[in-house]
């Protein structure tokens, strides 16, 4: 466990109240003063702040949502909640876009903006469409502020299952329904691969990350806001298939990590990577292994036994619980009971 703590200390960003204070700066003054008054225990577990025009201000955390009133009091029922006004959203957009909507045009087309600290803000409103696809969003009607927390060390309990008898990393697939900590788990495994883990006699390897949705590294102005380790190269905002090919050609990675694999062209790129002897770690939405067989690309990859380890996550009893670790060849579950994923410090 000694090495574990050194890994923790490399952090660039904590997950506590400090993160939260930075985030508050991106809210308009009225909302800022309300959110500031929310009790700390909610702030620490809060995952989302939801602003919807003319609807109550809400937060989401611990697997459920809460209404927030003007005094920052948190209720499970709607009770004198603060109604989010159009002005609230418009002004908050000013701070999120750094006062410059024109500078985030590309991000608006994708529907979200990554801000300093790695937090992501999903945006809806009226979409302007033309022959080239989505042109922009205007008249913003809703914002979803997703609070990013690096949970360093959450892969400690599973890491040993991901290594083969020679201590080398195996192709891994992480499966979970939305909001069960898929991306967080992937990020922590990438970090461990990159730093290396003395506790498992694992030396750090070169990791190439194709971060199509800017969730893993959460780059802001090109600088990763999350710590992905010293041996990690990040292609930000790049489509996965193209990104994998670019990394193979240019960065000589030993492991390639991507989020949410599933398009046709992805499988070609994966084949290419496997042929080059590169190990793979990726994620996919799904509840169980059976779910995945019906998916075209991923189903085929599983049938071809490309993935040697399949992690299945769930949110029962809490986010990030590891339901099963399946051996990809024999399809046998390697753990007796689900691993509760307590952050190891």
């Amino acid at each position, binding site marked *: 466990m000694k090495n574990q703590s050194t890994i923790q200390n490399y952090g660039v960003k904590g997950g506590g109240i400090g993160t939260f204070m930075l985030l508050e700066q991106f809210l308009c003054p009225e909302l800022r003063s309300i959110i500031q008054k929310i009790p700390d225990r909610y702030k620490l577990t809060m995952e989302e702040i939801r602003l919807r025009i003319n609807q109550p201000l809400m937060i989401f955390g611990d697997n459920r949502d809460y209404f927030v009133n003007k005094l920052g009091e948190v209720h499970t029922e709607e009770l004198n909640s603060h109604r989010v006004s159009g002005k609230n959203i418009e*002004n908050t957009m000013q701070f999120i876009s750094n006062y410059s909507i024109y500078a985030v045009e590309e991000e608006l087309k994708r529907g979200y903006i990554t801000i300093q600290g790695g937090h992501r803000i999903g945006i809806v409103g009226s979409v302007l469409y033309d022959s080239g696809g989505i042109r922009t969003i205007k008249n913003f009607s809703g914002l979803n502020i997703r609070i990013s927390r690096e949970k360093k060390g959450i892969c400690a309990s599973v890491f040993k299952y991901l290594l083969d008898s020679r201590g080398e990393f195996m192709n891994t697939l992480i499966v979970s329904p939305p909001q069960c900590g898929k991306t967080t788990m992937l990020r922590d495994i990438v970090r461990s691969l990159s730093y290396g883990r003395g506790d498992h006699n694992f030396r750090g390897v070169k990791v190439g990350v194709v971060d199509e949705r800017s969730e893993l590294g959460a780059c802001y102005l090109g600088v990763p806001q999350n710590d992905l380790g010293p041996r990690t190269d990040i292609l930000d905002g790049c489509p996965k298939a193209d990104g994998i090919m670019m990394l193979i050609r240019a960065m000589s990675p030993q492991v390639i990590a991507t989020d949410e694999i599933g398009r046709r062209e992805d499988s070609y790129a994966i084949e290419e990577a496997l042929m080059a002897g590169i190990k793979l770690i990726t994620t996919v939405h799904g509840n169980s292994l059976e779910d995945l067989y019906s998916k075209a690309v991923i189903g085929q990859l599983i049938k071809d036994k490309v993935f040697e380890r399949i992690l299945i996550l769930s949110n029962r009893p809490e986010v990030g619980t590891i339901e099963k670790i399946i051996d990809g060849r024999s399809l046998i579950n390697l753990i007796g009971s689900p691993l509760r994923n307590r952050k190891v410090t």
Partner: protein
Amino acid sequence: MLIKLMLSVLIIGGCTLLGNIYAGIYGERVKLLNHLLSTLQMLETEIVYGGTPLPLLLPRIAAKSKAEIAELLIAVADILQLKEGDTFAEAWRKAIEANSKSSALHRDDLELLINLGNNLGTSDRENQVKHIRLAMEDVKRNHATAVAQQQKNAGLYKHLGLLAGITIVIILI
């Protein structure tokens, strides 16, 4: 006699200077509007080709702008830096109001700047260009008026200063 002569020269010189200063104010406005025009041009270029966010862009074009215009841009950037919750339009207006007393610009010029501030940063590039172009048209119009006023009044004040000096001297003698 010598003292009388020296005092007379002093009075005439002083009055002429006063007249020139008055005349200079008109010239100052014309100059500032000219600077403003080139600053707006830079602003447009930075937004269209650079896509630089305003808090970074303002100090950059301030470095290339002149005198009062540069001060204004820096003041806005400083307010934004504080992150006290001012929107861009508010920060922009505050900076202009704070400078307005000492400004050689007229109320019309300041109004059109405030108007521009209400729209800066609130839309996509295409739209931003429209707003900046519109402001530039207004500045050009004000510039033309300022030049006309300068031609009409600057000469007048200069002569007025000289003549007032001579008049005072004559009366005193």
